[in-house]
């Protein structure tokens, strides 16, 4: 009897300890995460934002301040969760699998979510003033089946970066305007020896589609034309052949198929690479380090015609949840006021998404070269839900062309695109 009693006491204590652990630490989320309107359609007073972390020092700080202003101005509360870029995919998928999508999600894709019927379109939640202000090219690529869902938070445009010191050493007087010139310059730079890389070519899985976009756009190619996938068009095959040629001639860094953008940037920042495709965050880093004397130029085209640039935006999309419409609309109303959106963009070092923003930044000398090209920037086909899968296929397979056949690789991607779309 005694031993059993003791056993009971022990077990009881253990269970109590367990329970304490359960209730004790930390505060619960209070009410369920996200908008807490019931099915009765009562209005949500709190909405949740899941934002991607662009930088350690600015992203959270901005959104915290924004939440405060939002609360003061509108009376609604904004819950902010900041997630790093390499995890936000997993996190948002987990939430959606559990039917716990946030009210507003900051992601680099939107069309699949629109296709699944998860999003509000601009008629419901975007103030007309804001919509008019957003640059036309971004509205176009944010529109799925005639409705505007993909509201841009910030943008970037690519440009051609070159190392002036290396150019001088190699006897190159001006940045290349054609691909033939680029190839010749890369050869001259590599011939300098000492580990110098002519052109840093990132075709690794992180952003193969970004790099390749720059090249195909400047050869008159594209991913889609008139609603049809043209991934394996002759021009694109020609482009990829050219890239393979560069790699085979060893004027690029080692193993382009396994190099990500950050690695290519590191080579340029350390002064080892002569040329690379970059954007404003790279410029900011270079300015900070003051190690490399660099120049920015339009990207060379195949035949010397007008240069095209790749534009990229991320999105702040709104999830349909009962009762949160008003609060969400108030969010966008506040976000797209020039003070807010441009403060965010400036802090993170990116480019504006509104016409008023272009004016706002017109005094920044460093951004002039981008601002000029921005309104005419070409984007990847983000308005097509199939692109979300095609992009992944490109990331996983494009590099394979370096050791295989460019035509076969692009044919494979074309097949994938056609089967998905």
């Amino acid at each position, binding site marked *: 009897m005694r031993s059993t009693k003791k056993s009971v006491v022990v077990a009881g204590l253990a269970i109590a300890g367990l329970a304490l652990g359960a209730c*004790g630490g930390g505060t619960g989320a209070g009410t369920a995460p996200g908008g807490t309107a019931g099915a009765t359609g009562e209005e949500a007073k709190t909405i949740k934002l899941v934002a991607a972390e*662009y930088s350690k020092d600015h992203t959270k700080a901005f959104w915290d301040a924004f939440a405060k202003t939002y609360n003061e101005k509108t009376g609604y509360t904004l*819950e902010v969760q900041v997630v790093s870029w390499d995890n936000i995919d997993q996190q948002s998928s987990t939430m959606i699998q559990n039917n716990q999508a946030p009210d507003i999600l900051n992601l680099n894709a939107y069309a699949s979510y629109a296709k699944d019927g998860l999003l509000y379109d601009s008629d419901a939640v975007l103030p007309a003033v804001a919509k008019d202000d957003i640059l036309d090219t971004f509205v176009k690529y944010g529109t799925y089946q005639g409705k505007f869902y993909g509201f841009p938070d910030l943008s970037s445009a690519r440009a051609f970066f070159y190392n002036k010191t290396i150019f001088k050493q190699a006897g190159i007087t001006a940045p290349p305007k054609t691909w033939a010139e680029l190839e010749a310059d890369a050869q001259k730079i590599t011939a300098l020896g000492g580990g110098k890389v002519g052109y840093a070519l990132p075709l690794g899985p992180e952003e193969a589609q970004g790099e390749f976009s720059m090249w195909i756009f400047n050869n008159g190619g594209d991913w889609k034309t008139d609603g049809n996938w043209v991934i394996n068009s002759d021009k694109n095959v020609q482009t990829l052949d050219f890239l393979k040629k560069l790699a085979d001639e060893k004027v690029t860094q080692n193993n382009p198929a396994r190099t990500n953008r950050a690695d290519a940037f590191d080579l340029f920042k350390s002064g080892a690479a002569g040329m690379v495709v970059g954007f404003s965050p790279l410029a900011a880093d270079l300015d900070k380090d003051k190690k490399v004397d660099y120049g920015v130029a339009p990207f060379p085209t195949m035949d010397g015609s007008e240069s095209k640039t790749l534009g990229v935006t991320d999105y702040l999309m709104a999830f349909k949840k009962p009762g949160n419409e008003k609060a969400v609309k108030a969010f966008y109303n506040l976000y797209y006021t020039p003070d807010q959106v441009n403060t965010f963009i400036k802090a993170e070092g990116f480019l504006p998404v509104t016409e008023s923003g272009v004016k706002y930044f017109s005094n920044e000398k460093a951004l002039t070269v981008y601002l000029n090209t921005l309104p005419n920037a070409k984007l990847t086909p983000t308005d097509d839900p199939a692109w979300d899968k095609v992009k992944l296929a490109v990331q996983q397979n494009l590099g394979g062309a370096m050791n295989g056949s460019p035509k076969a690789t692009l044919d494979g991607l074309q097949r994938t695109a056609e089967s998905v779309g």
Partner: protein
Amino acid sequence: MTSTTVSAPPSAGAPAPQGGPTATPRDPKRRKRILMAIGGALVAFVFVAPYLVMVLDSLRTSSDVKSTPPSFLPKVWQWDTYAQILGDERFLNWLKTSLIIATGSTVIVILVAIPAAFMTARHRFPGRGLFLLVVLVTQMFAPTSLVVGLYRQFFELNMINTYGALILTNAAFNLAFAIWILHGFFSSIPLEVEEAAALDGASRWQILRRVMLPLTLPGLVTATIFTFIAAWNEYVVALTLMIDDDKKPLTVGMRAYITGYEQHWDQLFAASVIAVVPVVILFAIIEKHLVGGLTAGSVK
């Protein structure tokens, strides 16, 4: 493995220096100990070497980490990163959270594993093998694959964003190791020890507390370290369940230093060095109990 044989005969052929207490019998042993100390230093170096690089990288600028050609020592020493990190409120919150979660998980694992292991090791009852099997099988589920279900479960319990959720999860995922190692230790205690205590009239609980536990100290120490480290370094579940920045543990929070757009290697590595410290301190405190166990005489 060289082991000093007790019965090494005094070296008959060795020159015996006249009249000294520092004479022959101790020399082979001394040399052996010095050799072992050197060996120990080599072993230590191998284990520490990569982290030395990490420490050095925390003392140079971020861009210097990626310079070609690389240099062992920083070109320019940067000393204020540590101060920066320790003064950063975000970092301190992450540190606090990690401590809470790791300590809580460890306490619970020990409290729960001891009765379970004691019962399965020293007693027979129907379902015993089954219990051990269940414990083992549940360990085969990777947290990465269970994360979605965990999110849902804790959401329904309204425990998202709580320390409790992470403590319970970490405790559950580390229970098997604790149970198994304590089971092994409890099993190896001779029956006579327990019978003697029972003869003295001790209840099961008292036997456990007064007699068995002290003899399983190495196992307890191992289980403690193991659980603490596992909870300290857990990443996937914490990432999914914790929303507020100040409730994120170090593993999750530190991702902020390396975003896709800007990389602060110096801060990341400084934070990592700091993160290692509590674990090493804990270990230093309890390490001496690792080799314990039965000594001659306790049984007789």
